[in-house]
Each structure stands twice: as structure tokens, then as C-alpha cells.
């Protein structure tokens, strides 16, 4: 184990009766790291978080926190703070009493606790709200208080269970940046569960993509997006075009009737699947004589703001249709509309090819 590893999960499995919710979970999380568990609902990410918290008990496997085996310890014997999607603030206690809830129990002297509460409230950007009740606060404010409460006892691990899902879009973006900078400032090792890839990209040092109770890929945002290790990851993280292709000798592959260059060589005749992000199909520049250029016909334009999602058809691609991003400016400049023809180029080094 390297010195930096703070939390280690080894061989975690969880069965609910005959259903296996998690299997073969091995993961090391470094001290001070911000990790996101990302996956569709039902993939087991929340179950894994609750196992780390001791709120669920794994069927098998070992959990180490700072080198200490905590696999069989009840929640109160572990060292973490937790924030839930529902905030779970005590509605009958004031903000101050909520934040001080864990301090009071540790017999922290009153004056000291008061000081700590004030410090935490200014840390989460709500100084002076001590006397309010949770019902008097907005959702975003309540979640800040929940965060302050979880951090009050200075735990070394912070667990966030979809903390932003109940908030509206603008508050969500703002609060996630604040959580991120708070985490940097305190250096607390943090795990956040989310189903929102954009959220994970925005805050995480590393993303753990999960599917059907297993870890599909672990990596930083760029790795997960640019180098998805499985079909699932490619599909779940961002938009993707999927093309069926046949390998041709000499580092080429055939889609429909067109032969494209690709950076890898495959055995001739093998069936391939090519994954291509919309932004990896370029409309400019189009170098002359490039084998990866083909003629396309615009079928549909979906306005998305600064850019448009454009669906194109091409006789050379057979039945495949591609979705590409074209900037609003380019569409205007080139006077493109539904029915227009334009040349497009597939970027060979961006193709993810699976056999």
C-alpha cells in the first residue's frame, strides 16, 4: 500500500438475497482526493457509499481507512461525515444546533462549539444564520448547513450521496463549485455519488464509472471521456456515434462503402465497432485528398445555443447516420440548412475501436 492511500476497498461484494448488487470492487483512494462514483440509477454506487459509511454491510470484502481495518465496524466507530440528497437536517433544531449536533455529543465546551459553528457557517457562506430553522432556508442553503454539520467534527473522510440532485440547475452548478473549492481548502478526502456526468467532470480528481454492480473504469475526466475503456463508458459519458466497420489490411477500416484510415491495425476481415464523439467529426479544415473525408447531407438541425446538434446522412456510410456538433457561426457562414451538402472528416486518432 502506498503511503498516500487513505481508503482502500478490496473485493467488496454485496448480495441482496439472490441479487448481486456489487461485485469485485477494488479501489484505492488517495488522501485528499475527490472521487466521484458515476453511473446510471441502480448501478450500485449509492450502495457502495453506504457500505463505506457502514450503513449497509458488505457480504464480503475488506475496507481499510488510514490503514485500519474497518470492515466490521458500526458507523459510529468509523470516521466520516455524510451529506444526503434529502439534506436530513433536523427540522426542530436551529441551524446552530444542527451544526453543533456532533460537537455537543463530544462534550465540546459551549463557547468553543459556538465558535466552531460560526467558523463553519462562514466557511459554507451562511454566516449569521445560527438562529434560523431549516424550513426558513432554501434548498441550496439547507444543503450548505448539512455540509457544515458533516464537517463540524473535522472528519477526514466526507461522503456525499447525490447532494445536488434535489436542487435546481443554477444552484446546482454554483454549489458544486463551492463544494470543490471547500474540499481543496480543507484537504478532506471526499467521495461523491452522482448520476450526472457533467457534475462529475466539474469536481472530481478521479471518476469511478460503475455499471451493474461493477467498476467499469477509473480515471480522470479526460481519460474517461476520451479513452473510454468499454462500450458502456463510451455510451454513458457524453454523446457517441456508433459505426459498424470491417477491418481492411494496412490500418484501414470500411464503413458502408467508404474506407477510412485508423491509427491501429486489425486483422483483415474482423468485425469492429467504431465509437466517435460528435465533436470528432470535423467540418473544417478539410485537407485535400484526405481519405477520411466524405460527403454528407444535413437531415436535421437541433438548436442548442452556441452550437447545433446536426444529424447527417451519407450514401457512403450505408445505413449509418452521424450526429455532429457544428457551431452556429459556421452554419451561418456556410449558409447550411436542412438538405445542404457538406464535406466532413473523421479524426482517426479520436476513434475508439472495439473488436
Amino acid at each position, binding site marked *: 500500500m502506498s503511503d498516500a492511500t487513505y481508503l482502500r476497498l478490496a473485493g467488496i461484494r454485496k448480495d441482496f438475497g439472490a441479487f448481486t448488487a456489487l461485485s469485485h470492487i477494488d479501489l484505492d483512494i488517495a488522501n485528499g482526493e475527490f472521487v466521484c462514483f458515476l453511473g446510471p440509477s441502480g448501478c450500485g454506487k449509492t450502495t457502495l457509499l453506504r457500505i463505506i459509511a457502514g450503513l449497509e454491510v458488505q457480504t464480503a470484502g475488506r475496507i481499510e481507512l488510514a490503514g485500519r481495518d474497518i470492515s466490521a465496524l458500526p458507523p459510529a466507530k468509523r470516521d*466520516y461525515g455524510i451529506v444526503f440528497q434529502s439534506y436530513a437536517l433536523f427540522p426542530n433544531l436551529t441551524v446552530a444546533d444542527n451544526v453543533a449536533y456532533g460537537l455537543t455529543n463530544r462534550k465540546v465546551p459551549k463557547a468553543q462549539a459556538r465558535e466552531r459553528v460560526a467558523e463553519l457557517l462562514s466557511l459554507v457562506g451562511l454566516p449569521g444564520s445560527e438562529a434560523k430553522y431549516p424550513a426558513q432556508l432554501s434548498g441550496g442553503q439547507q444543503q450548505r448547513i448539512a455540509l457544515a454539520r458533516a464537517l463540524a467534527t473535522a472528519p477526514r473522510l466526507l461522503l456525499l450521496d447525490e447532494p445536488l440532485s434535489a436542487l435546481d440547475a443554477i444552484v446546482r452548478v454554483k454549489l458544486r463549485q463551492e463544494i470543490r473549492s471547500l474540499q481543496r481548502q480543507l484537504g478532506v478526502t471526499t467521495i461523491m455519488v452522482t448520476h450526472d456526468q457533467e457534475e462529475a467532470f466539474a469536481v472530481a480528481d478521479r471518476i469511478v464509472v460503475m455499471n451493474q454492480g461493477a467498476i467499469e473504469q477509473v480515471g480522470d475526466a479526460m481519460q474517461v471521456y476520451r479513452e473510454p475503456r468499454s462500450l458502456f463508458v463510451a455510451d454513458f459519458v457524453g454523446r457517441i456515434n456508433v459505426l459498424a466497420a470491417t477491418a481492411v489490411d494496412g490500418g484501414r477500416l470500411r464503413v458502408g462503402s467508404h474506407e477510412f484510415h485508423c491509427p491501429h491495425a486489425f486483422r483483415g476481415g474482423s468485425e469492429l465497432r467504431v465509437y466517435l464523439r460528435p465533436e470528432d467529426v470535423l467540418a473544417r479544415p478539410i485537407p485535400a485528398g484526405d481519405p477520411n473525408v466524405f460527403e454528407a447531407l444535413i437531415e436535421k438541425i437541433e438548436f442548442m445555443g452556441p452550437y447545433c446538434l446536426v444529424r447527417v446522412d451519407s450514401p457512403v456510410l450505408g445505413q449509418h447516420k452521424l450526429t455532429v456538433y457544428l457551431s452556429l457561426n459556421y452554419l451561418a457562414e456556410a449558409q447550411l440548412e436542412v438538405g445542404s451538402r457538406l464535406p466532413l472528416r473523421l479524426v482517426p486518432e479520436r476513434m475508439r475501436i472495439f473488436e
Partner: protein
Amino acid sequence: MSALLHASAPVRQRVHWNERIAHAALIAVALAMLAFLAGPLAAILQQSLQDAQGRFAGLANFVAYAKTPALLDSLWNSVWVSLVVTLVTIPAAFGFAYALTRSRMRWKALARTITLVPLLAPSLLAAISLIYWFGNQGLLKAWLGRLGIDQIYGAPGIVVAEIFSTFPHALMILITALAAADARLYEAADSMGTSAARKFFTITLPGAKYGLISAALVTFTLVITDFGIPKVIGGSFNVLATDIFKLVIGQQDFSKGAVVALLLLAPAVLTFAADHWVSKRQTAMLTARAVPYAPKRAPWFDAAMSAYCVIVCALILAMLGMAVFASFASFWPYNLAPSLRHYAMGLFDAEVGDAFVNSLAMSAGTALCGAALVFVAAYMLEKTQGLKPLRSLVRLLAMLPMAVPGLVLGLGYIFFFNAPANPLNPLYHTLTLMTICTIVHFYTTGHLTAVTALKSLDAEFESVSASLKVPFYKTFWRVTLPICTPALVDIARYFFINAMTTISAVVFLYAPETKVASIAILNLDEAGEIGAAAAMAVLIAVANTVATFGFMALSWWIDRRTQAWKQR
């Protein structure tokens, strides 16, 4: 590496010491339920299989029962009377609930309050009133002949009195069912130009279907297991409930009494199972997105609904008013000048005063201990972890009392606690045991109220506390209990009122010095002192009214002190 090591034995979390406290409390609750519910019920079963000498007799008692024509008549009487009452009460209560929830009539709160008043008095008050209206010396006795009825004693009296006393119960269920309507369905129907009748039959009725089934089952069970009304106005018309009493108290034939008790248990258990099935379905009916229905103004419809409610309220007030009036009448029907003769006679000569003190003590005990027990048990069930099999058992035992008629429970208490071998035998005939029996009898409703209140709390409070290393009991005390106090007061009030009026659960359990007021009323009636019986029943209703106001004040005071957080 470690995956292999751990693959064989599943990981078991170590139990934290403060979780052991929760486990101990749960075990205590389970033991209490076994001793005071399961034990007595098992004793009935055992008794029904024994002969008079206590030897195993197989099904001989059941065979003997089936060969007794008089007893079979009672079975038939019980069934048809209960059916008739159900068939009248449900449409009547549905109409009233419909008026309260789907019309814009005025004075809804008043109408609702009037219908709740009968719950404050023992159910036999209706029977006593009927005797004053239509009995041998009744005010309107002549009307009976015109309707082709010889006398009110017997089936007619039982049916009318039961309709009166079951009406509020059915009404409460139906109001809940009709209030939970989704306005969007009606708007969609209106946009398609649907007729009012079609809307009623395709939206309203199906929406209230489960409420109707549930109300019908509850009404049927209340009637078939009721003891007070048939005892007072049944005359020579025998039903199962009065049979048990005669067999056990009159003939001391415990085995046959046990057989009849099991017969009485059967429809109740069926009802219980059906109700459970219904309520499981009901939960899926309303979605979180439903828009509450707000009735529109419709002058003719509103007027018709108001007229109906006025008639029903008038009938209820006539019923209550007659008992009050008669209790003050000097000498019915010859001298109607008001006097306190019946009150003095009942309270002092017949020593109902002492019984009243017993009633108050028992009700206070039931309210305090019952509410505390119910709430703690529900908390342990809903909010703590571990001991899974025991949890299921406690959950089942908490729901069971709903299916056990008071008479059956009381009979079980005799068999179980009167047994010399039972270490709890010294409790027999004490007010303590009567209090316990009453708590058990009304347990389920309190339990459901507590569970609903607890379920409305965030499920993660306990997880947050554990992560902050705060023991569960501190969170219980600082958070759960303060938030749930209104529900707790509600439970206590329910226990109190029912303990004041109950007859069936305690009729087998009292000794002369532990007689309670509701039983004393029954004895007065048996002795022919119907005026004093009416007076004492009115006193119970008054005590319950005062108590209700007391609980309301308590609720208001607690609300002000602990629920400040609700104000925005």
C-alpha cells in the same frame, strides 16, 4: 487478495453497545405482546379443545355447538343483522362524506363535529335513547306499529342503534377516501365533455373503491362483535356476542364460550386480512403529483347535499338529545320535570361514583402507558436495525389486535391469567390488568398513527446521527420525540376516549372493587334503572368531551412550545 479470504464467511458488522439497548427494548416489547396478546389467544384455542375437566376433547365442543339449534340461530342472527347494518350505514355515510368533500355546502366543520359526538359516549347510549323513543313507554311507540314492527326490542333496535354507532367510523374512512381525489382526472373528463353521472361512476366511485371496501369491513366487524347494544336492546334476540356472555358468566361453560369466541374471531380475522390487502393496494393510488380537488359552486347540488346533512345531523342530535333529556326527567314518562334524581341515584345509591373514579384511572393509565408503549415500540420497529425475525413478529403482533374483538380478548385474559400456574396470576381482577387489556385492545390504531408519523420523518436522521457518533436515544429525545408530539397526543386522546367507553374488553375482567363506569351502566340497565343508566352514559360523554378539550389545549400548548420551527 482479501477477496478470497473473505469469500467464505459473510461479513457481520459488530454491534455497537447503544444498539444493544434498542435490541433489549424490542425484546421487551415482544415479550409483553406474547404475554398479553398471544398467550390469551392461545388459551382460548386450548380451552376450545378441552372438556369441562380439562382433558383434551378434540373437536367435540365444536360438534356439540353445531348440534345446538339455539346457538346456530345466534350465528345466523349475528350475520344478517351485521349485513343489514353495513348495507344501510355505508351508503348513508358515503353520501355524508360526499357532501363534506365534494360540495360547497356551508358549516362543514359543524356537520363533521356533530357526527363525531357519538364516539364520545358508550355505544349503548344509542340503545338507551331508542328505548326512550320507541320502547314500551316510548314517545313515538305508535309509529312502530304503522311501520309493521311490534316492538323495538330485538333486531329492529339492534339494527338502528348499530347504524347510529357505526356511522362515525364508516364516515371517517370514507372522508379520507374521497378527500384523496386528483383534480386533474376531473379536468381531463370535463375537457372531453363528460356528464356528471359518468364522472361519478368512472372516476369518483373507482377512486373510493378501497375506502368503501374498508369501511364496509370495519362496519360489519364492529356490529358482529359489539356487545353493549344487543345486551341493552336485544331482548330475546340472541347474537354471538351475547351468547358468549351467557355461556361464560351465566352457565360457566368455558369450553363452549371459547368455541363461540373462535367463531367471532373468524369474521374479524377475515376482515383484517382483507383490509390489509386493500390498504396495500390503496397506497399505489395517489401519486405525489396529484392536484387536490376543489369542488365548484353548484347551487342545486349544494342545497340538496346540505339538506341531507341537516337530516342526518338532526337524527344524531335527536338520538343524543333524548338520552340527555331522559337522564334529567324526574319520572319517565309521567313527570318530565327536570331533576338530578337519576344522577344522584346512579352516582351515590348505585355507587357508580367509585366506578367512575376507576374509569378515569384506567383511562388515564391507558392513555399514558399506551401512548408511551405504542410510540417506543413503533420507533424501535421503524428506526433501528437488527434482529430481523423478531421485528417481523412484533410487527404482526402490533397489527393483530385489530382482528381481535374485545370480548374474545377479555375471554382469553380470563383463561390465561386466571390459571393458577401463571406467574402473572396476581394481576387477575386488578385495574392494572384491565388497563393492559384495554391498551392491547386498541393498540393497532395507535400503532398505525405512530408509524405514519415516524415514516414521515427523513429516513436518514439515524444515519446522520450515527456518522456524528450520537447514540440513537439522544436523537430520539432531541429530534424524533419533539417532532412527533402532536401524533403522540392524538394517540393518547384516542386511548383515553376508548378506555372510557369500552365494555367488551373488560366485561369479564372486573371485580366489584374494580368495576368501571361503562360496566356499571350495563348493570344499571339490567336492574331496570334505565334513567340512571342514561345519566351515567351522559356523564361519560361529558367526561370525554372535557378530556378532548384538555387534549386539544395540551396539543396547542405543546405546539407553541416545541413546534416553533414550523413557522416560516
